[in-house]
């Protein structure tokens, strides 16, 4: 059980950071109480992990062959990378950290599944672009429907609020389905866990992070989303969810934060407004390019340190 703690820690930090992408707007605007949001998010994360987490787990476990010791090094390295970048104020993707750490161990093992890696890299670039596209399409379609609805201002308000809860629950489902692999896939590769057990433990770890430590991030990230009008905030959450779900079906863990940022950019294109500041974009880009090499380096260091032997003179 002890070796799994690295994965549980990674899952916990993932839940604490990424729940904001699902329910941040609803909580920060006080449309939904934190307890309800966290409860729904935790529930749907576990459901998503169990229902559709398999594909991502299969992809990550096949990137390189690892033993239990290496699996521990990977999860600890990924968790450390995310923590360091968060402390530095740079947005870090758990998916990129996990893959970076797997590559670090893969270099040691001199065995990397290049086809799988290529698919993962392509999907990373595709995530923000896909989210931009999803936001553009969803805004147009849902906007046309919304404008035609014969409902009062109060009903439209209730609809938006219910929509935000539904979209948040869906985004939570996709978060669990897509990102559970980051936390526990390597333990499946090491032969320690079955796919079902990995999905369950990973899902529960993410849910634990959501329930215990996501409030602060939800308020901070949510306040940025709330600057958008309620309908746009709803589209952003939904477009992020749809994009992450698409990559879940492809079996590639991607960053939910990058999906949400892409969706916010999409709304900016529609409205002809700058929805994200340039400094934020630079932060995202530097986090994007720094995360995999840092995780790779830390995993290699950890692996090296674990194999140091004391030789007496």
């Amino acid at each position: 059980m002890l070796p799994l703690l690295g994965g549980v820690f990674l899952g916990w930090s993932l839940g604490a950071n990424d729940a904001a992408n699902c329910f941040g707007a609803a909580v920060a605007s006080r449309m939904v109480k934190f307890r309800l949001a966290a409860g729904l998010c935790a529930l749907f994360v576990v459901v998503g992990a169990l229902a559709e987490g398999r594909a991502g787990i299969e992809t990550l476990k096949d990137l390189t062959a690892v033993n239990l010791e290496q699996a521990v090094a990977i999860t600890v390295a990924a968790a450390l990378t995310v923590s360091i970048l968060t402390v530095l104020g740079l947005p870090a993707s758990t998916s990129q950290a996990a893959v970076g750490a797997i590559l670090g161990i893969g270099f040691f093992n001199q065995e990397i599944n290049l086809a799988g890696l290529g698919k993962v890299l392509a999907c990373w670039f595709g995530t923000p672009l896909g989210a931009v596209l999803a936001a553009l399409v969803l805004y147009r379609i849902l906007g046309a429907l919304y404008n035609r609805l014969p409902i009062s201002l109060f009903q439209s308000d209730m609809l938006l609020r219910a929509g935000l809860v539904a979209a948040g629950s869906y985004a939570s489902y996709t978060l669990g389905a897509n990102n559970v692999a980051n936390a526990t896939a390597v333990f499946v590769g090491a032969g320690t866990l079955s796919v079902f057990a990995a999905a369950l433990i990973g899902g529960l770890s993410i849910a634990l992070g959501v329930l215990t430590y996501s409030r602060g991030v939800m308020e901070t990230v949510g306040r940025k989303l709330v600057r958008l009008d309620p309908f746009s905030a709803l589209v952003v959450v939904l477009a992020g969810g749809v994009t992450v779900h698409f990559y879940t079906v492809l079996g590639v863990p991607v960053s939910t934060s990058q999906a949400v940022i892409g969706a916010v950019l999409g709304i900016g294109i529609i409205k002809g407004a700058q929805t994200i500041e340039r400094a934020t974009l630079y932060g995202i880009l530097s986090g994007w390019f720094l995360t995999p090499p840092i995780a790779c380096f830390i995993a290699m260091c950890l692996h090296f340190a674990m194999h140091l032997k004391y030789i007496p003179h």
Partner: protein
Amino acid sequence: MFSFLFKKEKQLESLIYQYLENLGKTQEHFLKAMDTCLDDGICGEFGFLIEQTHKFESKADEIRDEINYLMYSRALIPESREDIMNLIEQVEIIPRIFELILHMIRTQKLKIPDAFMLEVKDLIRISVESCELMIRQIDLMLKKRHGIRALLSTIDHNESHCDHIERSLMFKVFDSDLDMVHKLQLKELIVAMGEISDQADRVSRRVNILTLKRRV
């Protein structure tokens, strides 16, 4: 089906409609009071109608406080909350003007000379009509129905007409043989009366903007 989840919103909706209904009653009593005053002068009936107008104005304040309380307890989404609070703040200026005019007449014992009577009656009638249209426009906005722009245009037209009457009355007052104190009293009264349609026009423009803002 999920109405139990939106109890506060339902309560708020009913309070806003109560507020509008109450505004209608304040306006109705103001009009009756003005008719009584212009036809019979300051009499007992006029005093009674002033009290009635005050009663409905106070009731409007109570309803507004309840609305604000619900808003602060997080009914509606933040954007709608802000919009509705600002709108009510603008609307509640109108019953205050009604009260101001009635008290001005009572405390200063103002008598409108016969030469200005027709135009004053016109000014009051058109101003009150603008308020009625404004209430209808708010109702349309809340129900998300069409016709808001048409009402905006009528209220705007009324406002221009009221401005015209106001200016004409001012000229007549200062061209008349009345003493300067009476002239200044009448000037103050006419400006207050003209403010009703100006405020209705401001609210109407606000309602139009809110409607456009809510379109995706």
